[in-house]
């Protein structure tokens, strides 16, 4: 079962929040991602069962949105903005430096399951270009060198404070915890904090810390 008993109870709560169950589709997919580290085939089937729709319908939705991972994501998902205001401030160098340091391809995850690096479109923080996110929290004006320092800390499981830490911004301790919060369920349970992606032994590369 992709969803634990605890998660199933949360799923029912999410469904009850809307006049029509299907509105809970994105929250449930985030919940599956929190539990499984990605939107797994079994998770898709579970959401289909909970909502009374076909797996194809759930799959069609899951593949439409960029935040649903189709293979296990690292504990820390690093998203580099690639849209013009960030590109003009060198975000391609940021991506390049991160990939080189991690020894992975774009979209890949380190062999120890700690870090995934992806490029995304405009993150609505263009005054802080180049913008990098860790588990959807902003690290603004982060050039290639700062980005490498950041990822080296993350590979050691240390999370440097985000740009607005002094104002109260907090980086989620894992991408699974971030997904739980995105489901609309508030503070994630502690068990999700230390979640790493299951190793992918068939994948090449993946320098660890």
């Amino acid at each position, binding site marked *: 079962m992709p969803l634990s008993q605890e998660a199933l109870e949360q799923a029912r709560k999410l469904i009850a929040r809307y006049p029509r169950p*299907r509105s809970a589709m994105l929250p449930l997919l985030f919940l599956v991602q929190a539990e499984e580290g990605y939107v797994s085939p079994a998770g898709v089937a579970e959401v289909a069962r909970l909502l009374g729709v076909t797996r194809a319908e759930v799959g069609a939705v899951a593949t439409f949105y960029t935040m649903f991972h189709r293979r296990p994501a690292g504990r820390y998902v690093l998203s580099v903005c690639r849209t013009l205001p960030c590109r003009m401030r060198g975000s391609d160098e940021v991506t390049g430096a991160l990939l080189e340091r991690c020894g992975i391809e774009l979209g890949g995850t380190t062999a120890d399951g700690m870090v995934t690096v992806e490029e995304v479109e405009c993150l609505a923080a263009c*005054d802080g270009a180049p913008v990098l996110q860790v588990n959807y929290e902003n690290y603004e004006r982060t050039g290639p060198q700062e980005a490498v320092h950041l990822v080296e800390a993350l590979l050691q499981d240390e999370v440097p404070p985000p740009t607005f830490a002094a104002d109260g911004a907090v980086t989620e301790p894992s991408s699974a915890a971030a997904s739980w919060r995105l489901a609309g369920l508030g503070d994630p349970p502690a068990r999700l904090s230390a979640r790493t992606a299951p190793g992918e032994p068939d994948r090449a590369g993946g320098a660890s810390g």
Partner: protein
Amino acid sequence: MSADASPPPRVEPVSVLTSRWREPRAHDLDRYLELDGYASLDAAFERAPGDLVQLVKDSGLRGRGGAGFPTGMKWGFLAKGTGRPTYLVVNADESEPGTFKDMELLERDPHALVEGIVVSSYAIGCTQAYVYLRGEAGFAGRRVARAIEQAYDRGLLGRDIRGSGFDLEVVYHRGAGAYICGEETALLSSLEGERGQPRLRPPFPAVEGLYTAPTTVNNVETIATVPWIVRHGVDWFRSMGTERSPGPKLYSVSGEVRRPGNYEFPMGVTARQLIMEAAGGTDEGTRLKAWTPGGSSTPMLTAEHLDTAMDFEGVQAAGSLLGTAAVIVLSDRQCIVRACLNFTRFYAHESCGKCTPCREGTDWMRKILQRLEAGQGREEDTGTLKDICDGIFGRSFCALGDGATSPIYSALKYFRAEFDEHVRGGGCPYPGARVPAGAHQELP
């Protein structure tokens, strides 16, 4: 712009929507209440809902999400007597490139949105509202979720708000990464658990929206503006801005300027004042080459257009659109073809795929721009780009396709020679088009 037009007068910055942004604890309900937060509720509950709709109509408030449709009129279109609920859906899916006003508002002053939701819902007879907030907004997400929770705890949401007899539930809902969900009908599809694809209008959401019930979808800044109008009135609101574009407005300025950020001005501030003064002008040693008035979906303008009044009419007269009032500044270090390639890749990635002209056309254009940059351009490429734009513009369900043509049409209009240079010179003549990362000037 007409040739005889003299530049619009200078205006002073205002502090309305940003008035609490420098208060470090304004996001917390106690501090927000000390700062006269939720004062508009009592003023609103004393009046009949219909009077409030009329008030917003009279204020001339126009939607701050990009289209600029009059808010009061939009509310007035809501179907009545249907026996169905009326829904307010707040569009907090801000993702137009260059736009970051709603996120900062939600991070610094999230109760301003909640207060706006209560007053607006009361006005339109809505007892169930939704906030659709983009997924990638970590900090804003925490702030909004907490503000809603605090409002429930203090009886500012829920049953019988402040003894008014008015009930309101608010559901907080996160997007999952899709630019198109900022389009109101796509947002509704997404909120119903579908792929975020736009719907054909009519029927408009005011008649058949969420769950086919009458629905209004309003931008964050729009809703956050409503309490100010309720508290201070139409004359006060109209004392800022212009006759047809009244009120204060948040402008996002980014790109190669010394002080990127959000700036609040009365509508109609000139681009010159915004870019060259407020944002400090372009980076040291550079000159302004091009700028977008309202995000990547609005045609680029040039240094010739700096006296444009940044209101709906002024920008239109200059041949572009105010859009989300997101000014992206490009200096003379930037290659216009490369900028177009970046934007076009964005649209090709974000096209939802429903309409063929947009789905196919954006990717064809991306390929052509790619080869121009790579030195494999052909003489006919600029003509082909224009033909593809003609094939997309006005031929898709929603504004995404139209928006995708804006960078290209405008670049061909003002910088045609640069495209030709790419073809004849065998590639991009701007080796230094990209400046080193983190090359911002420090804030003073």
